[in-house]
């Protein structure tokens, strides 16, 4: 019998965690569509905030995972990406 592959479930947790923001965004988008005025505005901004924050957190999570595994080249690549995003947003939003 082969020993269990330690990487076998590595993407399961990732997939499950990504389900939480999906549920939040689905709920705020659906309820926001039915409401109007201040609540519609509030839910719209919550939806946009989650859609913006999740991909950035995902990069952060990947970096922390690669740090734990000693994958230095890709830690540097992830940090470079976050730096490029920060500079890009700062420059383009002026």
């Amino acid at each position, binding site marked *: 019998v082969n020993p269990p592959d330690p990487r076998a479930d590595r993407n399961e947790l990732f997939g499950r965690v990504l389900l939480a923001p*999906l549920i939040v965004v689905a709920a705020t*988008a659906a309820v926001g569509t039915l409401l109007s005025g201040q609540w519609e505005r509030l839910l719209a901004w919550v939806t946009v905030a989650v859609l913006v924050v999740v*991909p950035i957190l995902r990069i952060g999570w990947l970096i922390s995972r690669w740090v734990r595994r000693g*994958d230095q080249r890709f830690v540097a690549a992830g940090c470079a*990406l976050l730096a*490029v995003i920060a500079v*890009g947003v700062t420059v383009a*939003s002026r």
Partner: protein
Amino acid sequence: MNAPTIFTLSAIAAILGTLGGIGGATLLVPVLVISGLAPIEAAPLGLLSVAAGSLAAAGRQARAGLVHHRLGVVIEIAASAGAAFGALIAGALSATVLSVVLGAAALTAAIAGGSRSGMRNLPDVSFSEETPGEWPGTLAGQYVSEVGVVPYQAERVPLGMAFAAVAGMVSGLSGVGGGFIKVPTMSEVMRVPVKVAAATSTFTIGITAAVGLTIYALKDRIDVSQVGPVVAGGLLGGVIGAGVQHRLSPVRARRITSLLLGVVGIVVIMRAFW
């Protein structure tokens, strides 16, 4: 445009966009503009659809081991730098020139992908016990196709990054996700299997959309009354698209991507002279 119409358009665009990994905005933005919405109002709605479709597909694609995160991060460094540069020079190019360049790029990618027959990356029985996913420290990995486990290795990385920078620049200039350049770049230039390229592109266009949405939010250019229908449609379309993509054969996935790219190319060029 009323909420049910926006919802339906967003869902259809997200299904097709996730299926081919090109993102919904490439299809949604031209349709919204043709329907009478100003391009400056359509662009943030397109990015919302892309971000929603990317989030909806993320869990399923990650669990299936189709996303190569390391490749995505490397590609996205060049794409994000290109997007910032594109946003800076957006005023210097005429809309007609930009549209023709966009359309020609989409048509070239459609022809390149559509003219190739068979599978480049073949299953290898020695990998049958391997878990699908990426190999730590490399731009290689394996994924499970319907005929076996297929190993792959990204090639010509500098050239791929150059194309990714162009994709980012196009994204910064026009407000679409740039996936219609990233997928053929990864599959045809870097020789990554098209299903991995499509899933990795769906991951990266979520990042590009997040950057674009931040800029639009800071400039107060997001119409909050349209956020709910666009995002709800994008989420539904993304879930359906990711489910269908998982069952497609690589050859069929590539054909669908090529067909979508061809349609996008023709629509974009027609828009330039309309």
